[in-house]
């Protein structure tokens, strides 16, 4: 059975199906913008009640873009695109590579654009002159002997007929990239307190631990603020230690500027203050200094001294960086000092006989989004191809021009004709320009203007 009368083939090759699928994809996609996606069942129960929730669960409407029926629609769309393209491409390819010097005189006489001339020279001499005219307008012509005379042919952008197929192929490439990402990649997250090191991250949705194959340490996390208190930048300084590859390096990441190592990318996505603090106390008189890493709410002693201290309260300010901490400090002599201080500064504590320097820094944990997506470059290549293909399909056209020269006694008759697959108006203008240049040749006169 030939593919022309195979009903299944015809079904998948039809553009009616394409219109239908595009419409259904557009219409069903709306659902997922109205029903919040990827929440736990309880959420839907509370928002929508039991019967709607049951319906959602049956039709997977709470995760509809991954549901079986939506993926089936995308499959149908792809099948349609592939078969439709396979159905038409051979004919289009023929149009790209066809030998236009074999076009019959009958076809030439029926071209959309035609002009006729009489030339006072032989066909060979006239052809020479017309090659020049065409070349002057940017058309490089080929020539062939025909039983009745000479045929010249020139064309522009024959390959532009393939633009449509580049667009269609680009959609499939993007799908392929998305599938590669879904099969071989992951989306995960991890929270690393400053100073801590992790070797695994946790997949979104399942919380499954995924080993990285290397170690990642967060040295520091900082937030920069604008003058009005809005956050300006979140920044984490990370160190990668990769023993397998004998490689260690440190790099800062920001939102919009992630770190990539071995195909795994770490994005700055959130942060959390922890309940731990770095405290540094200096006793200048005794030239003593010590760094403590302590939790809040506990009394800590500096061993072998009379000093003890603690963070007994905190008060959040207008914005993240404004939190203030209430400190309790005693050096064993007299009343303990109790005072408030902000994060990341140094305070002086005057005591009877000396001063202490006291600095505090709250320890933060940086929240990283971790993604591995080996398909992303495939997707990007598809996107680039799509833009190029759209430009070619919309703005370039395959323009063809023939000049048929027949002898008449010692003079010649000339038929100039041409056609374009798109942009008729632009082509008409080009064609008229060439006809005008031919007319200006002293050995040629126009005999009749067609159409």
């Amino acid at each position, binding site marked *: 059975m030939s593919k022309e009368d195979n009903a299944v083939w015809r079904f998948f090759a039809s553009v009616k199906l394409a219109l239908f699928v595009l419409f259904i994809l557009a219409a069903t996609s709306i659902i997922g913008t109205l029903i919040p996606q990827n929440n736990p069942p309880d959420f839907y129960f509370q928002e929508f009640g039991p019967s709607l929730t049951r319906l959602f669960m049956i039709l997977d409407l709470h995760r509809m873009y991954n549901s079986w029926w939506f993926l089936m629609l995308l499959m149908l769309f792809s099948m349609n695109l592939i078969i439709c393209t396979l159905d038409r491409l051979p004919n289009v390819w023929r149009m790209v590579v066809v030998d236009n010097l074999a076009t019959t005189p009958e076809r030439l006489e029926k071209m959309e654009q035609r002009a006729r001339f009489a030339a006072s020279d032989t066909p060979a001499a006239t052809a020479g002159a017309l090659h020049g005219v065409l070349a002057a307008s940017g058309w490089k012509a080929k020539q062939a002997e025909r039983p009745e005379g000479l045929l010249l042919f020139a064309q522009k952008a024959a390959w532009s007929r393939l633009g449509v197929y580049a667009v269609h192929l680009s959609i499939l490439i993007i799908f392929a990239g*998305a599938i590669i990402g879904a099969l071989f990649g992951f989306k995960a997250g991890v929270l690393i307190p400053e100073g801590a090191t992790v070797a695994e991250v946790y997949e979104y949705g399942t919380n499954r631990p995924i080993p990285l194959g290397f170690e990642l340490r967060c040295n520091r996390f900082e937030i920069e603020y604008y003058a009005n208190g809005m956050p300006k930048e979140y920044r984490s300084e990370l160190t990668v230690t990769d023993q397998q590859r004998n490689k260690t390096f440190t790099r800062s990441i920001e939102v919009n500027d992630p770190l990539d190592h071995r195909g795994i990318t770490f994005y700055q996505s959130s942060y959390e203050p922890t309940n731990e603090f770095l405290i540094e106390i200096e006793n200048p008189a005794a030239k003593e200094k010590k760094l403590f890493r302590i939790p809040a709410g506990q009394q800590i002693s500096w061993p072998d001294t009379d000093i003890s201290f603690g963070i007994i309260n905190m008060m959040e300010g207008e914005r993240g960086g404004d939190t203030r901490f209430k400190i309790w400090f005693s050096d064993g002599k007299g009343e303990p000092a109790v005072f408030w201080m902000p994060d990341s500064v140094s305070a002086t504590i005057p005591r009877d006989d000396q001063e202490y320097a006291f600095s505090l820094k709250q320890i933060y944990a940086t929240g990283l989004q971790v993604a591995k997506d080996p398909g992303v470059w495939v997707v990007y290549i598809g996107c680039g191809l799509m833009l190029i293909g759209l430009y070619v399909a*919309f703005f370039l056209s395959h323009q063809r021009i023939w000049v048929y020269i027949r002898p008449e006694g010692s003079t010649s008759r000339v038929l100039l004709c041409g056609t374009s697959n798109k942009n008729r108006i632009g082509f008409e203008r080009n064609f008229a320009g060439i006809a005008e240049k031919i007319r200006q040749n002293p050995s040629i006169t126009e005999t009749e203007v067609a159409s």
Partner: protein
Amino acid sequence: MTSSQLLGFTTFAYLASAALYLVVFVFRAPRIGPLATLVTAAAWLINTAGIGLRWQESHQMGIGYAPLSNMYESLVFFAWSIAIFYLGLEWRYKNRVLGAFAMPFAFLSMAYASFSTQFGKEIKPLVPALQSNWLIAHVITCFVGYAAFAVACGFGIMYLLRARNEEKGGGTAGGLMATLPELKVIDDLTHKTIIFGFLWLSAGIITGAIWANSAWGTYWSWDPKETWSLITWFMYAATLHARFTRGWAGKRIAWLAIIGFLAVIFTYYGVNFLLSGLHSYGRG
């Protein structure tokens, strides 16, 4: 002179431009056509200066950023894109009646930007996620596409008006509608404008995906804004295929140009104010 003064002027200049084109059309007064063009070009220059000055002001405040980052700024840029797109069309097709169907969109966009209380208009520093060159590319490409779709919608309306008039026997002989281009010409213009918009919308979706990937590690997360831009894209893709493979033309394409633009408006406005998602920065 501040940027908000300039942009305030812009609103009234576009009002004048739209009104003049409507006068050219409704009162068949081609003589004031050149004035309409002049006012439009001036309005567009003021609009440009307003955007430029706002850019400079943000730098003076020490938070320099391209003013394309919130609802207000995108509406201003939307009006700017409609005006320059329309001026290009007028120059190319030498027809001023088109202005009566295009420039009102530029005015409406500026008027909504200026008078709405749904979002703030002040220059505010950018939160970290919005500090990306891909975001700038994303906004520019999307809004050039949206501008083309707005104008295509205007042409769709123009087509339906003239078609209804001809059906009622107004014919091609006289009447107000006779000053409109022929149906065949409007149809072709609508189609070409949609094609132009489609190319830019495709580029807009792609640059948005690249931005999302650089900020969050996912180029596509089906958030409502993304999904609605894809829905819009599907609708225009269907419209184009209906035309060049099934020969749809005339009224059907005119309606699709209007419906497509409704989808654009929903993507732009509805998602920000009726649905929720990652793009909630529009709520100012």
